[in-house]
């Protein structure tokens, strides 16, 4: 997936888009090639995106998950035959291993076709070519996985092999007879290698005439067998027969290579088709596994969804046995989001970015329903992006530099997600900067969601204000050691619903209640509540 134009590394980190890429990873080399070339639809490509999503939708509806898995299993077994096909197209004679690759490729195409039978949205790229190549190679099928240049390909080959087998047997007999004769004369069991040692003390009489002396030492002779006339004649016949086999085998390979070469254009098209199917099936599987929907694509830079999920977090929670609470939202301008700590503000921002990213790449989105515009880019500003090195800069300075970068790239058709910008500077200046940022984004008719704890930002900027509802009631128990239990209790009491509230409505904060729940001592909590009444 090519994220470069759509999300910079910080944004990718914050939205965990690598998780998305991993979840969509195709299983074949063909699919991986397509995947590597995948780029987002740009804002002008609404119709192609709609068409793309429609295909995914039709496949997702027509294929049940077990069939999807079966297609992926078939694709996983596909060898990468592109190199072999390309070399064949250039006139190279195939090796047997390359012929096996092509045969397996044809098998995978056949299996995938079978599994896609009845799916109206699909048609094969090169049915005739694949069938011709598969037919030509069929005689070579050997066992479950293999290929052999079998005798059945050609009568000449069959005859040459029979003759070579006979010649080899004749030579083996002649050499064995010779070796046995020599062993008998030397009184030894066998001759274990081409060269052998004969100890002088073991030799009775002269060296046999069938033995060639290589080296003479004080205590032994280094020798080798001297082939007799019968063995030499058998050897010559064996070599001649082997040459005939070589010629016959090469002729069959050339013929098979020619069939592949003639059909190489069709095979290449089918390689591309397999890649596209692999990618499509990956999207379908993603949609089915994560209960996604096809978003309605709109021309405006906006994003609205019901029961949307930020899947990486939902996945993490599911793995630890915890529940993810969905959110619903309608964002078509610049809006402010406030709410308590642990209330899901960051997750809401991330869900927006994640759904926008899915849409841009033609992937069904994790929501019950969604209406999404095509964004050229998503820009993340604030907590959660992977921190870049920059030890001399304060947190605030890093944020300012980051904001400068986001603004420099332009804000038209961009979804800007701001998570607690200016949280580390003085509240009144931080608020002023946020208000100014909102005005800039609104002037550019941008779409942005700005989460903050700073009070009065929405009112000062005159923009819509969303709030997380927050704790239904303050949990009574205090958990000092078991943080996961505290989080579970907190989640049970938290209403994660995001609702539009009036501009000046004070957000529910719940920070002191949260601190109490997480085990701060009673004295400190009481003092904090007292201080809160004074500051008000």
């Amino acid at each position, binding site marked *: 997936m090519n994220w470069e134009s759509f999300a910079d590394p910080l944004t990718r980190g914050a939205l965990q888009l690598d998780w998305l890429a991993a979840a969509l990873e195709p299983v074949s080399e063909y699919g991986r090639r397509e995947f590597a070339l995948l780029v987002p639809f740009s804002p002008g490509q609404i119709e192609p995106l709609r068409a793309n999503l429609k295909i995914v939708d039709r496949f997702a509806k027509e294929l049940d998950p077990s069939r999807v898995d079966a297609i992926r299993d078939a694709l996983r077994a596909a*060898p990468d035959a592109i190199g072999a096909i390309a070399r064949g197209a250039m006139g190279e004679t195939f090796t*047997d291993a390359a012929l096996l690759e092509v045969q397996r490729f044809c098998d995978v195409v056949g299996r995938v076709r079978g599994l896609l039978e009845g799916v109206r949205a699909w048609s094969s790229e090169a049915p005739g070519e694949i069938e011709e190549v598969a037919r030509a190679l069929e005689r070579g099928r050997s066992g479950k996985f*293999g290929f052999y240049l079998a005798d059945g390909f050609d009568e000449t080959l069959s005859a040459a092999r029979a003759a*070579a087998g006979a010649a080899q047997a004749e030579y083996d007999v002649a050499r064995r007879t010779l070796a046995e004769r020599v062993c008998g004369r030397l009184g030894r069991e066998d001759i274990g*290698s081409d060269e052998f*040692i004969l100890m002088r003390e073991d030799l009775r009489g002269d060296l046999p005439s069938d033995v060639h002396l290589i080296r003479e030492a004080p205590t032994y002779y*280094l020798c080798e067998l001297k082939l007799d006339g019968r063995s030499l004649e058998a050897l010559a016949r064996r070599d001649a027969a*082997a040459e005939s*086999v070589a010629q016959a*085998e090469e002729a069959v390979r050339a013929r098979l290579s020619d069939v592949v070469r003639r059909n190489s254009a069709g095979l290449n098209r089918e390689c591309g088709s397999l890649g596209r199917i692999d990618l499509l099936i990956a999207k379908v599987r993603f949609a089915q596994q994560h209960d996604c929907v096809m978003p309605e694509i709109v021309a405006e830079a906006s994003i609205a969804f019901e029961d949307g999920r930020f899947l990486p977090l939902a996945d993490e929670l599911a793995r630890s046995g915890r529940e993810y609470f969905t959110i619903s939202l309608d964002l078509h301008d610049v809006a402010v989001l406030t709410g308590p700590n642990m209330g899901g503000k960051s997750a809401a921002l991330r869900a927006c970015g994640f759904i926008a990213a899915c849409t841009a790449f033609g992937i069904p989105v994790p929501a019950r329903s969604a209406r999404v515009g095509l964004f050229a880019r998503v820009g993340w500003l604030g907590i959660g992006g992977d921190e870049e090195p920059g030890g001399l800069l304060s947190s605030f300075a890093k944020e300012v530099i980051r904001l400068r970068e986001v603004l420099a790239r332009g804000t038209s058709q961009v979804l800007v997600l701001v998570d607690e910008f200016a949280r580390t500077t003085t509240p009144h200046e931080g608020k002023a900067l946020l208000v100014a940022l909102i005005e800039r984004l609104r002037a550019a008719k941008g779409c942005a969601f700005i989460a903050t704890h700073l009070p009065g930002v929405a009112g000062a900027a005159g923009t819509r204000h969303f709030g997380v509802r927050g704790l239904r009631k303050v949990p009574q128990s205090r958990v000092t050691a078991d943080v996961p239990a505290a989080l579970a209790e907190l989640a049970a009491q938290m209403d994660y619903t995001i609702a539009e509230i009036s501009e000046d409505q004070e957000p529910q904060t719940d920070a002191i209640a949260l601190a109490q729940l997480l085990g701060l001592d009673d004295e400190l909590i009481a003092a904090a509540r007292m201080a809160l009444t004074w500051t008000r």
Partner: protein
Amino acid sequence: MKLAARLLDLAHSHGMRSIVVVGTGKNVGKTVVVRALCESAWAADPTLGLTSIGRDGEAFDVSDALAKPRLFLRQGTLIATARAAVPATPACEIVDLSNLHTAIGDLLYARVRTGAYYEIAGPPTAWGIRAVIERLFDLGCSRVIVDGAVDRIAALAGGKDGVIVATGAAAGATPQEAVENITALVRRLGVPIVDSARPMLRIDGALTAEAAAAFSEARERRQIVVRDPTQITFSAKAFLRAAERLDLRCERPLTVIAATVASIGRERYFEPDEFARRVAQATALPTFDLYTGKATAA
């Protein structure tokens, strides 16, 4: 019984499914041993598997361009070798393709359909060779022979693989040196399994000569435990000295079952019977000389 058959029988008596032949150096008759084992194993049961750690069976040594003994394999033998090493003719049955790599390209599994000379180039890594051996058994081999390398047999430790150590006149300037080298190697590969009831000091990774010297200096009495014998990474003489002073142990032992000798080298020759006798005595292993056709008891 023929000599190679006796070697196979020895492995069988130890309960070994596969046999790995390693050498104390180059040109010590390793390929001759592998070839003889293949011939013998094939005669007993043609469902034989063969692979190599690295490259073997080529006509000429790639490092010095001198002629090497070649591997003549019989019909039915299953080989794991590089695609590039499969001869165009006679055609083999390509049984399966693999994602593993060798020094000269991707690996595949092929069945010999016609007896001929073959070059074997297997995976260069210990875990790769383990995977290949398992796959050869999966594909129906009853026995697997590996043309091995001492430093890459770690993955075979703790398994049912018997090791044969080959030495020869090329392994030392004198018979004494060659005997010392194989003795050190056999003792290193044969480091016994750790005694869990006694105090021990576990070493993560390799035990170097420097570390062994430090333990020796400190008069360490605990068992010095490495994962497997190939983690002991120092020279023959240093190992013999360390083994005298330290209680070296491993978690996953190797089983060395025999030694072979090749008393003829490119540069020198040793007196065959005397050399075999000294190797057998020093290593306490049955020692086979395929050139003389003789076996010497331990």
